[in-house]
């Protein structure tokens, strides 16, 4: 079901009329952030593998050619198919998918990012075109062109893949560390923001590691291959896992340039985030150390089950790090500028003065908000300000949070959300708007609790 807003009242001068001047996409109990997380994590894993492949494979191919290593060359040809079937299909499509999902859930965010960085996105598109074409040529023309040229095509693929990471990483890092952009609004200040380099190193390490782990998996799935052949290929690929051991110093660098409140959230402020981060850090470091001592130095091998286990741990660690990166931005989507509900700080002030319905045309078509009941108006305010993160009964549900609260508690807590929960945006609106929201949230209380609360109130 889609809410149908209609323009109501005058849009305050200087107020960007795009905010919430949209229908609302309702995902029901699933929750918008869940959908973004699922699509984004799948895409990040596949895209980072594509980047790692682009660096690892031409390098290994050149090395194999120099040493006339036919075992490794045969493997790499097989490994390239993995890129085509896995990365070029699911990777490319989930990349488009993220764009679609964010456009549906948070159009203000994507509109801001596209307008600020349109030439960055366009440059990435050029890299992307080169990446796809060079990738296909690299795969389809294996053994059909001279080896040196083939390696060069692979290097072009690697540069294009890493180049697209370079561009997109700047834009993603901007969301957490916009730096001087907050005052200059300059493309370069935004893109070359304080977090861009540590983020790039972290993602590059992660990309190389995924390529190395997938080498171990693919080496194990060809039936009939001798143990020695498998060991040789896995040992050759294990060098790309070693940089994982650098996760700790690079993470320290990353936190050093991140906003202090965001860093505090990860380092103890939010238990879930701390756990995710610690898991990601410890798992990555251990895999890196194991790769160095076990695979590279002592030339050990791993069976398919072990390779899959290591890959699963790495994938969970990658997902955990991405979750942390997304989570530590809260309550913002662009730190210090735009809140998670799509409101900028300036818009918050406007709404506080003029009221939610004077500036937000989020009302059912043809209905005057003055004729709605407080509960109905409160429902619209909830959907407009809270619905990006909260569902009623599904993911991050609001009902369990408020069902035991009295209206006074709801009112007091909502008034100072940003103080009680640092990762939540402050409530925007007048006292009348707040009362409408309280009226709506009070209806979410269970009958049992409502009766209990009523009895207590009657007793008083």
């Amino acid at each position, binding site marked *: 079901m889609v809410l149908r807003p209609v323009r109501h009242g005058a849009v305050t001068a200087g107020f960007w009329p795009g905010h919430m001047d949209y229908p609302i*996409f309702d995902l029901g109990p699933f929750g918008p952030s869940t959908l973004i997380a699922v699509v984004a994590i799948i895409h990040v894993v596949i895209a980072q593998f594509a980047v790692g492949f682009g660096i690892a494979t031409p390098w290994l191919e050149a090395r194999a050619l120099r040493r006339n290593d036919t075992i490794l060359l045969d493997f790499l040809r097989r490994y390239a198919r993995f890129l085509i079937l896995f990365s070029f299909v699911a990777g490319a499509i989930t990349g*488009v998918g993220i764009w679609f999902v964010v456009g549906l859930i948070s*159009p203000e965010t994507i509109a801001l990012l596209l307008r600020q960085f349109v*030439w960055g996105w366009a440059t990435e598109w050029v890299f992307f075109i080169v990446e796809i074409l060079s990738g296909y040529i690299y795969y389809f*023309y294996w053994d*059909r062109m001279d080896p040196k*040229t083939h390696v060069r095509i692979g290097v072009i693929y690697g540069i294009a893949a890493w180049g697209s990471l370079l561009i997109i990483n700047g834009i993603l890092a901007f969301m957490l560390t916009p730096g001087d952009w907050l005052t200059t*609004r300059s493309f370069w200040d935004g893109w070359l923001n304080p977090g861009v380099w540590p983020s790039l190193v972290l993602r590059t390490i992660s990309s190389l590691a995924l390529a190395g782990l997938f080498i171990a998996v693919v080496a194990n799935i060809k039936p009939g291959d001798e143990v020695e052949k498998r060991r040789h290929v896995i040992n050759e690929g294990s060098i790309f896992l070693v940089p994982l051991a650098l996760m700790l110093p690079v993470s320290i660098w990353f936190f050093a340039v991140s906003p202090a409140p965001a860093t505090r959230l990860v380092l103890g402020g939010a238990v879930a985030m701390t756990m995710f981060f610690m898991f990601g850090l410890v798992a990555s470091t251990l895999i890196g150390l194991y790769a160095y001592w076990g695979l590279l130095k002592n030339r050990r091998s791993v069976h398919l089950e072990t390779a899959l286990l290591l890959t699963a741990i790495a994938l969970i660690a990658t997902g955990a790090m991405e979750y942390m990166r997304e989570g530590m931005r809260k309550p913002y989507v662009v730190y210090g500028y735009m809140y998670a509900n799509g409101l900028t700080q300036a818009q918050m002030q406007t709404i506080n003065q003029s009221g939610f319905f004077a500036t937000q045309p989020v009302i059912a078509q043809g209905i005057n908000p003055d004729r709605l009941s407080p509960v109905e108006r409160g429902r619209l305010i909830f959907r407009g300000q809270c619905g990006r993160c909260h569902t009623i009964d599904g993911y991050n549900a609001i009902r369990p949070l408020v069902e035991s609260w009295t209206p006074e508690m709801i009112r007091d807590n909502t008034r100072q959300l940003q103080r009680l929960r640092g990762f939540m945006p402050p409530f925007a609106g007048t006292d009348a708007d707040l009362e409408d929201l309280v009226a709506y949230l009070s209806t979410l209380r269970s009958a049992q609790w409502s009766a209990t609360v009523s009895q207590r109130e009657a007793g008083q």
Partner: protein
Amino acid sequence: MTPPDPMALPAPVELLQFLFGLTFVLHIGFLGLLVAALWAKAGAEWGRRPSYDPERLHRAGVLGFSMTITAGVAPLLFVQVLYGKSFYSSSIKIGFPWLAIIAYLLIGFYALYLSRFRWDKAGGPSASGKGYLILAMLMVFAIGFTYSWNHLQSLTARPWADRISHALAARRLSGYGGVAFIASAAWATWFGRLWRRDGATPSGAKWASLAGAAFVLIWALVSDFTSDGWGQNGKRLLLTSGLLSIIGFALLWARQSVTARFIPWVRWTSLVAALAGALGLVLQRESWRLHTLSANSGASVEPVRMQWGPFVMFALALVVGLLVLAWMLMQVRRPPGTSSQTY
């Protein structure tokens, strides 16, 4: 000091419109390759004497699919920069069907691969191979339909208006589909002989020309165009595209009696027809956007803050990228080795 408006347009409207048009034509071009590969594959699956090289045809198909998606990213980018407000509203309005495009893409792409796997396994046409191919075709159609639906929805004066009917979206798809067929004929006349063992131009090229001409001419005659220069030029280009395609069809039909030196004329006719059709669609779409959206959320009334430095970065990347692509294609054109690679 108040910081500049972060939501100002990053370039003049005309530049963004030009880039949108350019990249949309490119997107349609690669869509033509995909459509050509699909009907050629159908010819291989259902034809009585299939003479296609399955591997080359498969490569054309997956390259067409990949490049259609990749090339389609850029026009989507420029449309969102120019008309984001109406675009996001219409996307939200059709919500889940819009989101389903991701599934259509995944299913369609993998169905294309599966049809190829089945061909290898069965040693030729098979019932399941046909099924996978039909599935891929259906997915391509569903994607086109959903985009058309979103585009029409975005032209409504009120972004949160009721959903427009499926019939309207289907009707609009005839223009888009017609140009895609004409573009597919262009690919087939230029490169189709490479997909066949006998080196002949696929006979499907003439039928694609005819079908494309029919759809485009009907679309040009029954659909609405704005009365301004853009709209009328768009109509003229679409009519030209349809008529050239009919000429192309006639030449291909008569190609048995046409001398070899006449064949380049067939190719150029089909190429110009495809370009005219794609450009006609661009002008028609843009003229309607300007006509309908300027009063509500048109880009033409928004402040502009040109980002020269980043634009130069993009332009340089584009030039270098094109040079790299040219170099790679030159390497591909060198005589191939002896080994073959299949899945």
